[in-house]
């Protein structure tokens, strides 16, 4: 009996140490983000705080351009996620519920596009957007983020939709429902758990992306959060407290999405795993 007790204590000790070790970097960064520059320079990065300087956040927010960057990120991420889910679910609906010619080939082709290393696309996409007069615009970024992710979402969603019994659809068709009504009124509502999972995931991926924004944008004021962090880093060299504040600001939206949709989020990560 006492062995069991000891093992439980041992487990919790080990797990606590591990979790604390994992959380320590975050805790330190949070503390540093609230310390004044004099305090950090005078007492060192690891010292206990001798000051309280929330001004770091306003320095990063307005001086460091994080405010504009968050707005840009929202302009990109929100429509990109919604359109991705719309287009992805449309294709998935047709591919899973109808006898489309080359059905399986199309699914794999689209998924294959998502698996390509993005590097192969960088130069051509930058050039193509110049040809269309859309270089350095958030619209291009939205299109690229949608197009590059789409194959994955189509694949996952068609797998999910195939589990919906065909009888439901047939009953609706007998009642005279159109394909659009079957999609919008019947299949989409039944797909909601998968859509929520993928939506949470897509938001995080698009919001956190660095490579595409720095490839298709050049104007500093158009940059979303991730590249804006890099210019903040260049602007506040060695102001570790302001850089820490900027990183915290950049992390808050995805942490909020995660905490709000954690169940869906974890489910989404596993949905994507092709067994």
């Amino acid at each position, binding site marked *: 009996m006492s062995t069991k007790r000891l093992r439980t204590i041992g*487990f919790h000790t080990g797990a606590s140490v*591990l979790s604390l070790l*994992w*959380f*320590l*970097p975050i805790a*330190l*960064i949070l503390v540093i983000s609230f310390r004044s520059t004099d305090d950090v320079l005078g007492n060192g*990065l690891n010292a206990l705080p001798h000051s309280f300087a929330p001004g770091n956040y306003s320095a990063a927010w307005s001086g460091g351009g994080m405010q504009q960057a968050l707005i840009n990120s929202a302009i990109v991420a929100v429509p990109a996620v919604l359109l991705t889910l719309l*287009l992805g679910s*449309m*294709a998935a609906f*047709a591919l899973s519920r109808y006898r*489309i010619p080359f059905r399986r080939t199309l*699914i794999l082709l*689209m998924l294959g596009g*998502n*698996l*390509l*290393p993005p*590097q*192969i696309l*960088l*130069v051509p996409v930058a050039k*193509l957007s110049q040809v269309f007069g859309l270089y350095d615009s958030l619209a291009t970024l939205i*299109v690229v983020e949608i*197009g590059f992710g*789409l*194959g994955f979402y189509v*694949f996952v969603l068609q*797998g999910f939709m*195939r*589990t919906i019994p065909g009888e439901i659809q*047939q009953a609706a*068709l007998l009642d005279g429902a159109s*394909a659009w009504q079957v999609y919008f009124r019947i299949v989409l509502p039944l797909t909601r758990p998968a859509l929520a999972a993928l939506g949470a995931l897509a938001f*995080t991926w698009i*919001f*956190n992306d*660095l490579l595409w924004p720095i490839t298709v944008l050049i104007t500093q004021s158009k940059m979303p959060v991730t*590249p804006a*962090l890099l210019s903040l880093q260049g602007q506040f060299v060695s102001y*570790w407290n302001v*850089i*820490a504040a900027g*990183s915290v600001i*950049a*992390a808050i939206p*995805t*942490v909020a999405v*995660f905490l709000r949709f*954690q*169940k869906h989020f*974890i*489910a989404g*990560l*596993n*949905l994507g*795993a092709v*067994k």
Partner: protein
Amino acid sequence: MTVASTNSVTPTNARPVASRATGRGRGPKRSWGPGRPSPLVLAFVLVPLLVESVSVFWPAVQGFYISLTNWNGVNPPSFAGFGNYSKMFGDPVFRKALEDTAIWLVLFGGLSAAGGLGCALFLQRERRGIAVYRAALFLPVVFSLTATALMWQTLYQPNGMVNGLLSSIGLGGWQHAWLADSSTALYAQIVPALWREIGYVMVLYLAGLKGIDPALYEAAKVDGASAWQQFRNVTLPQLRSVNAVVLSVIIIDSLRSFDVVWALTQGGPYNSSQLLSTYMYQTAFVNTDFGYGCALAVAIFVLAFGVIVSYLVRAFKESD
């Protein structure tokens, strides 16, 4: 903070199983909607396909073509055959980048798989407080790699956390300017990437472990199997499909690794932490050598090709 508890993993694991069951029972070709898709239904496929064609397939074809040209973006591209590819063989930076990418693949991939599996085994049993432990390990997964990199840049400063921890455990002699020293810059940057990846791999393995039939362990216990034997002969074989997933995830993630290095050293000092992905970006967009940049991208594609194909083969089987 309450996160990622039991129930959250359940739907996860239930889905592929369910989809497979229906696929098998029903047969894919039977009774799906009307025989011939209407124009609207075809449009449902064609519009997304068009979007992906414009932003992925057509650029990909062009990328291969550009790799066969010399192009600086000012003059029109001139055809160079395989000139850019033969240039790679004599390019010491390319060789260094290839080497660093291999190191990254082995260390980042191996340690995140081992760490993820270890954490999943350690935290697999549902018990009080388990959600908090899992959440702590998972939290970094939602940070962007760039924000992660900047956090660790601070921690790697000469008077930062890493050196502080070392001296507090009596290893003060190991203190170092981790990112500025060309012998440690690469390895120092694998750590933040690992810190972020392990939680992700753990989640994949937790779902896999949950799917193992407890009766198998019961049977093994009856046969007198030790904990290690149970792991060797029950857990590992049962995790085979998850292992395949994890393998493709970490290889694809390794080859895509860019953000951390671009944010911290941009491949320096003296190309000591140059990855193929950072070298490609630098060649194309800093040195505006688009032809060679695309050839480097093709090299990355070639390395990823095997993984892409095996992933698609598994996807093919699943979509049966």
